[in-house]
Each structure stands twice: as C-alpha cells, then as structure tokens.
C-alpha cells in the first residue's frame, strides 16, 4: 500500500473511531414505553409499637454477667399495616407492611410502584394497622395483655397512635406520568402530590 493511501486510510479509521465514540455516548434508548404511567405510593408511618416482655429463665440469667441479669427482657415491634390498593374496582395489591429494621421496631416505609395505563382511574388505597396480629397475620393471644397496655399508653399520646389511612379518588394520568400518593402530616391523610 502506498504511504499516502495508508495515511488516508489511517485518518479515515481514526475519524470513524472517534465518531463511534460520539455515537455510542448518545445511543437512543427508550427507558419507558409511551403507554405506561405509574401509581407511586410513598410515605413513612410512625407506627405504634407493641412491647412483649418475659422474665429471664434461670439458665439464661446464668449465662449473663451479673450486671446484665435484669428481671425481664422486652422486645418491641411496630404494629404491622395492611396495605390494599384497588384500581377501577379490582384489588391489585394486598400486602402486609412491617416496621423497618432488623427487629421491625423502626418506622414503616411504604414504597410501591404500580403500573397503570394512561387515562382516568378510580384509585382506592387502604392502609390500616393490623392490631393484635403477628408477623404472619395469625392472632397471638398471648400478646393481648401487652396490646391493651399499649393502647392505654396511646390514649395518653394520641399522636403516637397507629391510625388507619385511606385514599379514594379518581385520577387522570398522562403518558409516562407518575401519580404520587403520599402522606400529608398536617392533614394526617393520604394525598396526591402534583408536580410543579
């Protein structure tokens, strides 16, 4: 190959390489199809906690250092919530939401994305505490006393009480629009947030 032809070919190859970089840095990608919208549920609920206490057995006490041999040990847990979502009359989500943290005694966070078709939809959301129910939704009779004691404490502090929340509205969502339903602490209700 002649040197000039080689130089020309080299220059063309270099140009193609940088053009390749330019093209690959802006490859078109449709992240979301046009006919999709989203119902997004996002809120934080400070649930009331139940505390379950039991005395330490003698064996357990023996395994502990003297200064840690308390008369009883207590385990607190946030009251779980039942989350139900119906769209246009059909229930599409029914879930139990537990408190965060390893011991489930931290606030409850709800974060769900539900795909919708763009248009008008009747949305119903229920978010209610499951009183006296354990993790698997089975009644735990032995917790009743604890629960009652907890209720008495809640009467003293109404703010801390787990309250049921509900949302029932007909909404209109556009293509690729996100309908965000969240908790408004001033109104103490679920509300839809509309963008600017």
């Amino acid at each position, binding site marked *: *190959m002649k040197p000039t032809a*080689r130089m020309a*070919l*080299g220059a063309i*190859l*270099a*140009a193609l*390489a*940088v*053009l390749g*970089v*330019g093209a*690959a*840095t*802006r*490859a*078109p*990608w*449709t*992240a*979301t199809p*046009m006919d*999709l*919208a*989203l119902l*997004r549920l*996002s809120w*934080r609920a400070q649930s009331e906690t139940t505390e379950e206490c039991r005395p330490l057995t003698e064996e357990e006490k023996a395994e502990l250092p003297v200064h840690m041999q308390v008369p009883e040990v207590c385990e607190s847990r946030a009251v779980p919530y039942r989350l139900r979502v119906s769209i246009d009359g059909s229930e599409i989500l029914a879930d139990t939401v537990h408190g*965060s*943290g*390893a011991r489930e005694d*931290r*606030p409850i*966070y709800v*974060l769900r994305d539900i795909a919708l078709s763009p248009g008008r939809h009747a949305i119903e959301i229920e978010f209610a505490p499951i009183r006296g129910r354990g993790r698997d939704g089975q009644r735990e009779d032995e917790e009743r006393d604890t629960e009652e004691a907890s209720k008495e404490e809640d009467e003293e502090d109404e703010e801390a009480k787990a309250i049921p929340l509900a949302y029932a509205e007909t909404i209109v969502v556009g293509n*690729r*629009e*996100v309908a*965000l339903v*969240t908790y408004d602490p001033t109104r103490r209700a679920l509300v839809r*947030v*509309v*963008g600017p």
Partner: protein
Amino acid sequence: MKARLRTLRRAAWRPLAAADGALNRLYGWRFNPLYQSGALAVVLLVVVSATGLYLLLFYRIGAPWESVERITEQTWSGRWIRGLHRYASDAALVAVGIHALRMFAQGRSWGPRALAWISGAFLVGLVLLCGWTGYVMVWDVQGQTLAVAGARMLDALPLFGEPISRAFVGESPMPGQFFFLNLFLHIAIPVGMGVVLWVHVARLARPTLIPPRGVWLTAVLALLGLSLVWPVDMAPRADLLRLPGRVPLDLFFAIWLPFVEALPGWAGLGVLGALSALLLSIPLWTRPRGAERPLASTVDERLCTGCVQCSLDCPYEAITMVARADGRAELLARVDPARCVSCGICAGSCAPMGVGPPGRTGREQLAGFRGLLDQAPPIRGEVVVLACDRGLGDPSARWDPGGARMRPVPCSGNIHSSIVEQWLRAGAAGVLVLACPPRDCWNREGPIWARERLFHDREAELHRRVDKGRVRLGYASRSDASVGNEELARFHAELAALERKEPFADVEPIRECDPVLEMIE
C-alpha cells in the same frame, strides 16, 4: 478447566492480534494506539481532570441542570470543553477495556502481576463510579435513570434504615445536599484513582504512563475535533414525576442500565457483584498450576560478579543487590520469587551467565545451542531467525521464513548475545532477531534491552569482534507476517552488500566463552 481457559484466552487474543497487525500496517508499531492503551487511558484521564476543573467553576449544586445548560451555551469554551470531558471519559474507558483484554489474553494477570490486575479492576470500578456521579451531576433524564437505578440497588443492601429510593419519588425537589455529595464524590474519586494508579504500577520498573506524543496528541485532537463538530447536547431535565422516555444512553458507562432496569434491585446488585467478583478472581483462575507454572529466576552465586546489570534491567524490580555472606567484596544479586514473572530478561543481561529462570540462563542457552548443532545439519551461509514465540516464532502464526533457519525464543530480551555470536561462528550468514514490537512485549522491555545489547554495548553486549552488519533486529507482531518477510528481504539485501568475508576472519580467535563452554561440557 485448563483447556477452557486456553480457549478463552485464544478467543480474546485472536481478534486483538489481528487488530494489532492491521493497525501496525496503517500506523506502524510506534504509533499503534492499541499498544498504548494503558498509557493512553492515563493521558485521557488527565484531560478529563483538566476539563473537569473548568466545568467545576460554573457548576451550581443549587441548579445543576440549568448550570450545565449554561455551560453548554458557552459556544467558545464551555460547549467544547464539556464535549471533550465526556468524550475523553468514554475514550479512556475504551482504552482501559483494551488494556485489560490485552493483559488477560497475554496471561499477564496472575502471580506477581495479580496486584496490578486487582488494582486495575478497582480502577475500572472507580472510573465507572466517577462516570455515574458525573451523569447524575447533570441531572437530566439519564442522570435521573442512573440515580434511581443506583438507589434501587443500594436499597437491596440491609444497610439503610430508610429506603434511599424514597429520595427520588418526586415528593419534593432534590435537595442541594444530594448534589453536594455527588459533586464531592465526583472530585474525590479521581483523587483516589491517583492512589490506586500508583499501586497499579508499583511493581513495575520504569512504568510507561505517557504514550508517544504522536499518539496522545492525535487522540486528544481527534476528540477535541469531535467535541467541536458534534457537541454534547442537553438531554431533557430530570423530572421525578415523569418516567423518562427516550434517554441518550452512554454505552460506555451505562450499558448495564437497560438490563438492570428489567431486574429487581437485588438481582441487579447481584449481577454487578458477580461480574466484579469474576473480574477480581481472574488472577486465581488464570494461574498456571503445577509444572505449567514458570519458575522464578535463580542466581548462581559463584558466577555473580555483583555488576548490578540484572537488577537494572529487570522490568519488575524483582532483583535486588545484597551483601554477600561468603566474604567476597562484591554484591550479590537476589531474586524475589514473589515479584519474578520468569521473563528471562536477566539471563540476557548477565555477562557471566549466572542468573535466569531454570532452563533459560545464558549457560543453558549455550548448551541448547550446542545440542542443536549436533542434531541439525551444518549451517553454511544461511540466515538464522531468532523469533519471539509470542510473535512470529509462535508455530500457530504459521510464518514461513523461506530459506532461513527459524528458531523460536521465549523473548528477545532473554537471548544472550553470546548465542548470536555462536550462530555466526557456526557459519550463519547473519542472525535476524525478530522481537515483538516494544510496547507489545509480554515481558515489557525485552526488545528494548535486546537492541541495547546487540547494538549499543549494554551489558551483556554483543562482542565488538562480531560484525554487526550480520545482525539485525526487527519488530513484528504475531500477525505481521508481511513485516517478517520485509525484514528478511532487507536483511538478505544487506548481507549481499557486505563483503564476502568470514565474519571472524580479521579478529583474533579469543575464546571468551570457553570457560562457560567447558563447564557445560
């Protein structure tokens, strides 16, 4: 497993070798960018840092998208600087990818090179992370998609009390603290990369961090030209209450995004984790086992004169000079097996032939040569080609040197100059050493030291009594059969032009190698 690894390596090596050969023909081996990929990545990251400093002056964490838009509107400066920042980042990632592929295909990923491999893998991770934060900084639809995908994956880790994804639901505008943290990471990560780069080259003597001027200048000017003629545009502003539609996806930094988007957060994180583990574990599963594992160089203490040449020539700083224990005044070379890659370059550097990997020391090369002479037909007027077995000396390269006698060698830097002399003494018309192109040497500096020893009196130099007109050093990669033919043709022409005289007709027959030969015999 072993066979599968070999197949994998071959699969990686073949296209690379073919591309090397093609670019060698176009640009010559000196300016072949594929050979300079590691150093090119460093230069491009310097360009990214320099352009990033300018962009930093105008970036506002309170209005990220708007400030980047203002930068992009600066026709005379910001527009092309932003483009160069982006394109140089992408090109750096390409260069890093080629560099890693070459190291893997050449089997330079295990043992003493494991530190370089692992630190290199961390560098890749840091480059990707830095690119991630860079895109989020712009806060356009791609930045939004990346931020949300990242948050989803982080939420899969049981580390955070509140899901990070809740920050991106659109309930309120993104706080300035988020962009501050992002900016901090975008600046801190490159600083960390500097430290990791230092570790990356810590085991190399004379690391090459800057490619030839022609290569880096061409690369930077080409990317600058691209940023002028095809500037980076603004994508739509991020809106958390709208799902991103058409997103301009950067295939270098975000090629994983469409796959991860289709998976739950934990699965995306798992896939990325598995890929990272695979990359980091390469030194483990590419390590040759048992007899296949090359042995580290050893030093014959009786022969070591303490000249320090092997220590100077070692490309991996594996040889140090220590005081002797036997009362002799001179120093003694000591090889650190943890650093020695068994390249054999020290064998070529040692005049008394006292150092080298087992089986490849100067003495053993001489013994092999004499054995060969006993078996092979006598040489009269033939050209002998000593070709690197990673280049044209590789039997699978199927290069036919015509009437010349071909002799594969492990590395041109491993050849002791006495061997060249012995071939000529045995009657060869000339010796052509065909080395790999210097920047493609699997042992880093073999061809450089071969040239110095053959023609520039570097120890162990080719003796002055040898007619250097009968010795030639050429560079040809495995795919450069035509270059090998050209070198051979040129050498034949040079030899023909020489006077018809015996190579040693006018010198005293000083048998300097006799003591060594006697030892062998």
